[in-house]
Structures are given as C-alpha cells and as structure tokens.
C-alpha cells in the first residue's frame, strides 16, 4: 500500500493540456509563479504524502478517533504529522497572502489535495475543514476577526470546523434550531447541538475555530433566518494569546463506516461566546461562497480514493498468478500468469484509470475557473468563469465521488477475496470513499442544484454556453482524432437536446426536475469526460498510452450515456405514480 503521486499525469495536465503558465501570466496574483516553484510544490507535496501521511492510514482506521471524558484524541501519529504539515506551510497553500497565506492557484492546489486524500482521507479532513473555514472567514468576517484568526489557521496552529447539521436538519438547513442571543458587548451566546461535525474536537492543535450556523431571536423562519458565527474552542485575548475555555464541547463521537481517524463529533454549545461573521440572516449565503471550494475538495476525495485503489490493484494484478492468458502462457516458467493479462482484470483497471485521469483533468479545469473568477483582471472573463464554477461544481462533486466510489469497488474486486480483508487496504478505501457521496450535500442534492438552480433557472443558457465551449474546443483539435471528435460532438448534442427537452418539459411537471437530476448530472459528467479525454489525447499526439486510455473511455465507458438519456426521457411518472403506502 505504498502511495506514489501520479506526478507525470499531473504535470501533463498543467503543462500540456491546460497550459497553466499562460493563464497565470494573465493574472497578477499568479504571474510570479514559475515552473520550478510548481515542480517543487508537486515533488515536496508528493514526498510528504507518501512518507509522512500515508503510513498513518491503516493504523488510523484501526485505532480510530477516541473520546474519553470529553477529550478527543486522534490516532497515533496524527498530531506529529499535522505539525510537520503545518510547519511546511501546507495548510495555508490557498490562503490570502495578506494574512499569511501562500495565495497559490487552485488549479495547482487541487493536485496537492488529491495527494492528501490518496494518502489518508481521515487525516486530510482536518486540513480541508480548516481551509474551508478560513475561506469563509476571509470572505465575510470583519478585519478584526480576520487579523485575529486567519494567520493562525493558515499557519496550521489552529484548525477550523463547520457546524451546520443538526439531528433533524441536514439537507434542509432551513429548519435548524441553534440559537444566538445578542449580548451587550456585541458578542452572542450560542446554544444548541450540532451533529456530524468533522474535526469538531481533537488533539492536533490547541485551538479550534468553529463556524456555527444559528438563529437570532427575531429571525424569520426558514433559510433566510440563519446567521453565521465564529465560535472558538478557547477564547482569544486581544493580544492574540489564548484565554478561557469557551462553552463548547464534544459530547460524543459517531461510530461510522469509514473515515474512522477523523473525529465526527456531536458538539454542544451551551451559551458559548460567538462573533457574527457577515450580515445577520445571511449566514447561508455566506456559507455558499465557500461551498464551491468545499464541494470541489470533497469531490477530490473521490479522485484520491480512486487513484490509491488503482495503485494497489495494479500492484496486485502484476504479482498475483492465477490462470493462463487467453491467447497462450505469458509466464511459462511460472505456475500461472499474472492476472493483469486477463482481459476482465484489465477492464477493471482501465475503468478505474480512465475515471481517475478524466476526473483529475476536470478538477484542474474547475480549479482554473475558480482562479479566473477570483483573480483575472478582465471583468468579462471573471463573470464567465464564475458562471462555469457555479454550473460545474455540483457536477465535479457528485461525479468525482460517484466514479471514485465505483473505482474503489473495482479496485477491491481485482483483489478477489483478498480485497475484503482489512489489511490489504482496498476495503478501507471503499468505506472511506462512501461518505463523499453523502456529505457536503448528498449527490442527490448536488444533482438538484445543478439541474434546478444552474440549468433550468436560466433556461439552459449557462449549459448551452459551456457545451459550445466544448464543441469549439473539439473542432480545433487535430484532424487525426476524427473518431473521438465525432464522439465528443455527438455527446454534446445529446446533452444539448436533453437540456432543451428538460427546459421545455419542466414547465409542465414539477417533479420532472428532481426525478431526472441524478441521471442528468451523469450525462453532463460523461460529456465533459469525453471532451477532456480528447484534450488529453490531442495534447500530445505521440503519447500513445494516453491514446489507448482515451480510446478505452470512448469505446467502453461513454456508451453509458445512452442508458442515462433513456432513463431521463422516461419522465417523472415512473417514480411518482406508486402511492406511498404501496412501497
């Protein structure tokens, strides 16, 4: 279970497929980045993940996070590894440079995030939640709060946690109950219980900064009555030193299927002191600004798992001797041939690989759009990029994690019965990957967000713009790849026609949208992957194994689009007609 970051493919994406340097040169924030910096970040990041973080993955799963007398401890080795990560400056990689962040482009840091997830999902969540909380603070908090909290979060001295879910309110945050009482000194007393709080308490750092959604006394009901508060575990004095313990504590840890090294806490706020972040009643909107980053990050969890599972599976498939190749012995001196020579084993490995590489390319593309939206000097470009981010983030989150989970299941299948055994690591990846389809908005919620809020709401205009971009890009590809070009254009027109059909039909039936959403999201994902596979093939006409992989994608995976298209077009009645009592 050694992890080696897929650096060759990562560099290929940055340098050849997306020509990152050209984009960075146009953005003042990134214009000083040169290729030696990029190489150093990728190489050092890979080393850190392989040598420091990956070795804690299996033991972290077996040991799990523990709670004793209200004190949460992480698995052995986690605190030291977190310190190493923090000291290397890795926590603030994306952070605002004004407050000590490194301000690196997302297009690059998505690759490091993937390495982290491949190495150790549980460990990485502590980092990811800190980045997410810092992002929200940076976007919405007062200058005082930013000055007080951001530098220590970027430096890795403190971590962050996001406290949204309550026992009765998950997908539907509008019905949450946690209260915030205004105090004379301008602070608030926060009371309530939050569940499923990742990294809610732990022993990695001395302080934890919670961002808590709660209601003010006069708040309207529903999602428009929710405000956002910063609630530190330990109160921070004016001079930045730590003060008294705040009235917030973990009361229990959940017993979960996977990510066992990550503490999933029930958090009790008993009149804890909090500071409002952003405007009152606009907490959800404030959360949404960081949502795109968080969703992309959780999507990347799917890629990280898929990649690790692939590496384990390839290793096993080359070693394991079983049966003879169909066209004659490959290893005549041995008792049998390595199973990588069996076509069905290759089908599984190549499926994993084809998903992983296309997902990685898409993560880089979405990262680029986030960078353009935030940093490009040309207003038109930022507007267009922001649209792309809004449109594509739910696709990235759901498609990465669905395909990442599928990839992990296949990687487990390659090992046969040995894949079911904990020591071999493949079953842990299936368990760890499974949560990514659920949290940060279930994939059903992502699909609904895509179809309802990003597609139907503008009569499909954003989607049509994006399809046009893919088509134009495809038509610019070399004529050598005519078959693949044709396949991309066909997928684009399938998607365009289906989008138009949905826009038209939606007005007639309120249930169509939600009944189609998941399948529609998958069609969008497949179309994008076809486009990206063509890009990856075309970026290097002599790289023949990329061509083999691309052809595999077009021939063996893209056909799934036909099944999905037919399912969507069957309409909503098939899922709505059965009366509730007949289920």
């Amino acid at each position, binding site marked *: 279970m050694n992890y080696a970051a897929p650096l060759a493919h990562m560099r290929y994406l940055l340098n050849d497929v997306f020509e990152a340097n050209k984009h960075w040169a146009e953005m003042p924030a990134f214009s000083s980045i040169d290729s030696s910096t990029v190489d150093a970040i990728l190489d050092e990041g890979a080393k850190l993940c392989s040598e420091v973080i990956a070795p804690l993955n299996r033991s972290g799963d077996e040991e799990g996070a523990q709670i004793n007398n209200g004190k949460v401890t992480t698995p052995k080795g986690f605190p030291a590894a977190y310190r190493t990560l923090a000291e290397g400056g890795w926590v603030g990689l994306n952070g605002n440079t004004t407050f000590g962040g490194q301000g690196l482009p997302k297009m690059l840091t998505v690759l490091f995030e993937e390495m982290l997830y491949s190495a150790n999902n549980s460990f990485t969540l502590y980092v990811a939640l800190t980045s997410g909380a810092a992002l929200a603070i940076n976007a919405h908090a007062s200058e005082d709060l930013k000055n007080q909290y951001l530098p220590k979060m970027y430096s890795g001295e403190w971590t962050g946690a996001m406290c949204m879910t309550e026992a009765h*309110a*998950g997908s*539907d945050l509008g*019905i949450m109950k946690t209260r915030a009482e205004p105090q004379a000194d301008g602070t608030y007393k926060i009371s309530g219980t939050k569940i*499923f709080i990742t990294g809610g308490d732990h022993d990695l750092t001395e302080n934890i900064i919670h961002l808590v959604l709660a209601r003010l006394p006069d708040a309207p009901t529903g999602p428009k009555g929710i405000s956002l508060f910063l609630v530190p575990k330990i109160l921070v004095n004016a001079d930045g030193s730590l003060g008294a313990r705040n009235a917030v504590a973990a009361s229990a840890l*959940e*017993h*979960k*299927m996977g990510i066992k090294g990550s503490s999933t806490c029930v958090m009790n706020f008993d009149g804890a002191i909090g500071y409002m972040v952003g405007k009152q009643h606009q907490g959800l909107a404030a959360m949404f600004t960081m949502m795109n980053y968080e969703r992309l990050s959780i999507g990347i969890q799917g890629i990280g798992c898929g990649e690790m599972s692939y590496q384990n599976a*390839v290793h096993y*498939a080359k070693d394991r*001797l079983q*049966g003879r190749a169909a066209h004659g012995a490959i290893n005549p001196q041995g008792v*049998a041939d390595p199973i*990588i020579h*069996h*076509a*069905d084993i*290759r*089908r599984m*490995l190549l499926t994993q*690989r084809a998903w992983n590489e296309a997902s990685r390319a898409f993560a880089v593309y979405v990262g680029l759009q986030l960078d353009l939206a935030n940093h490009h000097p040309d207003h038109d470009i930022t507007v267009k990029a922001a649209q792309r981010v809004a449109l594509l983030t739910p696709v990235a989150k759901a498609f990465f994690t669905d395909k990442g989970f599928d990839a992990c299941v296949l990687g*487990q299948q390659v090992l046969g*019965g*040995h894949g*079911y*055994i*904990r020591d071999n690591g493949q*079953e842990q990846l299936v*368990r760890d990957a*499974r949560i990514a*389809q*659920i949290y940060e908005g*279930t994939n*059903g919620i992502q699909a609904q967000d895509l179809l309802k809020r990003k597609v139907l709401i503008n009569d499909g205009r954003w989607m049509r713009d994006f399809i046009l971009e893919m088509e134009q890009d495809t038509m610019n590809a070399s004529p050598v790849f005519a078959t693949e070009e044709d396949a991309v254009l066909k997928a684009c027109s399938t998607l365009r026609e289906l989008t138009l059909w949905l826009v038209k039909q939606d007005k007639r*039936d*309120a249930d169509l949208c*939600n*009944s189609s959403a*998941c399948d529609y999201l998958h069609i969008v994902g497949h179309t994008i992957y076809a486009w990206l596979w063509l890009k990856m093939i075309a970026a290097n006409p002599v790289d023949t*194994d990329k061509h*083999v992989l691309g*052809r*595999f994608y*077009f*021939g*063996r*995976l893209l*056909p*799934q*689009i*036909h*099944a999905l298209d037919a399912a969507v077009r*069957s309409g*909503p009645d*098939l*899922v709505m007609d*059965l009366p509730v*009592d007949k*289920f």
Partner: protein
Amino acid sequence: MAVYHPPVRDIQFVRNELLDFPALYQTFPGCEGFDRDTLNAVLDELARFCAEELVPLYRIGDTEGCTWSADGVKTPTGFREAYARFVEGGWPALSAPEAIGGQGLPESMGILMNELIGGANWAWAMYPGLSHGAKHTLQAHGTPEQQQVYLTKLVSGQWSGTMCLTEAHCGSDLGLLKTRAEPQADGTYKITGTKIFISAGEHDLTDNIVHIVLARLPDAPSGTKGISLFIVPKFLPDAAGEKAARNALSCGSLEHKMGIHGNATCVMNFDGATGWLVGEPNHGLNCMFTFMNSARIGTAIQGIAHAERGFQGALPYAKDRLAMRSLSGKKNPDGVADPIIVHPDVRRLLLTAKAFAEGGRMLVHYLARELDIVQHGTDAAAREAADERLALLTPIAKAFITETGFEAANCGMQVFGGHGYIAENGMEQNVRDSRISTLYEGTTGIQALDLIGRKVLLNGGVNLNLFLDEIDAFCQENAAQNEFTAPLAELSQEWRKLTGELGEKAVANMDEAGAAAVDYLMYAGYITQAWLWARVAVLAASKGDADGGFYQAKIHTARFFFQRILPRTKAHLGSLRAGSAGLMAMPQELFIF
C-alpha cells in the same frame, strides 16, 4: 436501527402465483401432499423464527464479531442459542431426503429457508449454509458408511460442515493448490496444508465440524485434474460414530474483514490430519461441480437479502424524515417540512432497491424450480431441459443479483444521507456485508467467463437460443401487453444477434470473450429480469385492485424497471461492441503511469 421483516407476502406471490410451486410439487413422487397451505404454514413459521431469533442478532453480530483463542472460536452473543433453536425446530433437515433423516422436501424449500434466514442475518445464516457443500458432497459421492457417520448429523444440524478450497496463492485458479494427502496403511490419509478464507471453519455452535478438503495425492497430475476430496472432521468419530479424539487441525487465525463480522472466516491449518477420500481420486473438482449450481444460487440469495434490507430499512426513514417541500406543493403543510419520500430522487433510490430485491427473488426462485425439476422430475426430457436452463442462468443469477444487491444496499444507505454512514442505523453494515457477495463463490468476473465461455459460446449458443425462444413465445402470446412485451421481444432479438457477433470475434481472438464477459453478463441479467417483470405485469394486469393494491404496485415497479433500469442494456451493448482492442493494447509496464 433499521427495521427488517421477512418479506412473506412477496415470497408467497413469487412461489404460489408467479411460479406455482404447489402445482409443481404435486408432480413429484412423495411431495404430493405439500400444497399451498402447507407451504404458507412453513413460510409463516420460518418468518416467525427469523423475526424472533435472528433479526435481533443482526447488529450485535457486527459489533462483537467472532473472537479467536487457542481453545477455539467464539461466535457473537446469542448466535449459539439461536442455532440450537434452529436445530430443535428441525430446520436444517427441511430439504434433505428422508433416507438420511431429512424431511424429504425439494431443495427449493431449502432455498426459501435460506432466503429468509439470510435476509434476517446473513452472517449467522452462513453457518448452516456452509454445511450445504459438505452435505452434497457426501450425499453424491460418500460411501454408505461415510453417509451413516457424517451425513445424518450434518442433516440434523448437530454437526456443521465446510468446504476447504482456497489457499493463500490460489483462489480463482484452484489448479495451483498445494495441500497434500498422504495415503496411510489403514486406508486413511494424512492431510497437510493451510487453507484460507474458510467460512465457519471453527466456531462454537456445534460439537463437531466436518471439513471437506481439496488436496493432492502424492502421484496426482498437476493442475485441476489432480485434486481429490477428503473428509477431515475436527473430532474423529469413534466406532459408534460419536465424536472422539481431536484431529490434527486447527484454526490459526481469523481474518479481519470489511463485513460479515459475525461469521468466522478462518485460516485452517491441517498438520497431518486424518482424512478419508470421498469419491474417485483426482476427480475432486468434478465432484464439486455436481452441486456448483445450487451453491451459487445460495450466494445469489445474498443479493436479495441485502437489496431487501436496503429497501426495507430506507422506507420508514423516507416516510418519517422531514426535509424540504415537495416540488409540486406541500404534502405535509402542518409540519416544518415534507417527508422525503415525496422527492422524486428519493423515490428513484427506493424503487431501484425494490425492483432489484423483487426481481432477484423471482430469478432465484425460478432457478430453484428448475433445480427441483432436475432432482425430482419424472420426465427425462424435462429434467435435461431444466438442467441446461440452470446451467445457463445460474452464473447470471449469482453475479447479477449480487452486483445489483450491492447497488440496492447503497441506494438504501443513500436515502439516509449522513445517518446512513452511522453504524447504529444498520444501513452501512448492509453495504459492508453485501460487498463480499460479488467476490466469493466465484467472483463476478469468473461467473461472467463461465457464462460466455462454457454456457454460451462452447455449445454454439444452443442453450441460449432455447431460452430466447421461450421469451419470444411469451412475447407473442402476450402481445396485448405490448408495453412490456414489445421492448422485451426487441431485446431478445438483439441479444441473439449480439451473441452471434461475439462468437465470430472470439474465434478470431480469444481475448474477445474475456473482454466482453462482465458487460455481457450484466446485459443478460437485465434482459432476464425484464422477462420476469413482464411475466409479473401480465399476471398482475388480471388482478386489478385486489389485495389492497399489491398487484398495482407490481405493475408500477415493472414499469419503473422497464423504463428507468432496463435502458442500461444500451450502455453494456455499446461497451461490448467496442471489443477488446482498447483493453489489451496497453503494455503491462505502462499501467503504473
């Protein structure tokens, strides 16, 4: 904690109405009295046993797991007591011949029982389930003495059995196995070697455990033709057939697994253990083939078990959990939100699980019926036809039902959102437990090679064509229900054509069959399910609103399957036609990049 109720009504529907087992039993000598009422009574009694004894042990089996010590393996709290009551009730003997102490019912009744106990608690059900192989081996190949000593106790459940096949270096490829059997002067053999992944290899439920071990004689040819079967009991029987001296075998350790924690997966060490040859020397694998189909059906049942649990667990949650409003207007205006079952995407998950649970059940019981005909039928031609149908559809049932069972288990978990990931709710256990089913008893890939190679291409598609002829005839007879029969007839034609294409490609390149295998199997599985759902739709159409809308629900589910699930054949077809080139072209070294 997710609820589970034995699905009695649906089993009655499949057994009594769709497949009419009572009528079939009337044609079997000795089974004439076993009518619909008797079948329903057995079903009710079993369901009660499952609900009272096995369902309550579902979570504890997972959390406690099995514990190893040098003295043996301890099963989770309550497993032993439940097993004792299972034996007291005479259940292990349900479908064994009367001559060896059984109740003489056809094997399909054993399959029905396994579905019920497996759905209630798969990890527990594996203990009696694993005796299947040992019983069948001895029944078909044992000497009268061996049958006298071992079989009667296995049938009563007093002793349990295992099949010791896998070794560390060989699983799918049993020809490589190394365990040795040395002949002794007294006619016994000394068995030496290490077996892994031995389910129920050691436990505290029974006094004795009868291992059937695959091993090589000293002069055995290499490969699969040099394997023999041996009975190797944990305790040697004395002259009276009662357990006596401890044999030289032991459980070295238990595997730490993803799921089925309540079942002991053992490393078994045989250190010159005493064994007796069963059947002809070097014909061990052939001996095992005699019950391969029923063993695989036994694992297919696991797919139904987890699909049913996924569905049943998710349903009350979907009705109770309030989140957001229905898109077509509030359904629960007095509450803070609507129950999530009003949301189409939640319904999609529920209906997918439901369709796979009920569809898998139909296929398993259909095969159980064919198995009965093979074993009890009075007409030779019918027996042969049933045997061939069984050979064709068993690999499909094993792989398709377990693959879709895993999908359905995941659907059920997804309905719960984050709560599905929490152990106490039982939905994630269902996913973990189900994951093994596509791996053991021949992986999905192995089943698919068996289907496309041995069952389809090797006999020129003759068996398949007979099956497709039957589907075509059904479609013609029921042309009035063309909503179902028209697309089914088209698919039947497409399946025939596709098989011809594959046959031609496979002649030219041996890798084509392997490259196509799993897509072909899944394609075949969806069409086979469509045939069964079409039969249900035809049957239900004649029943109107009877039974509180039970039949209407069947039609809705059939329609959902046809229009939302069945289009998956298009994806498999496209992938199949892409052929093997993309798979085999990449050199092995390039896989690491």
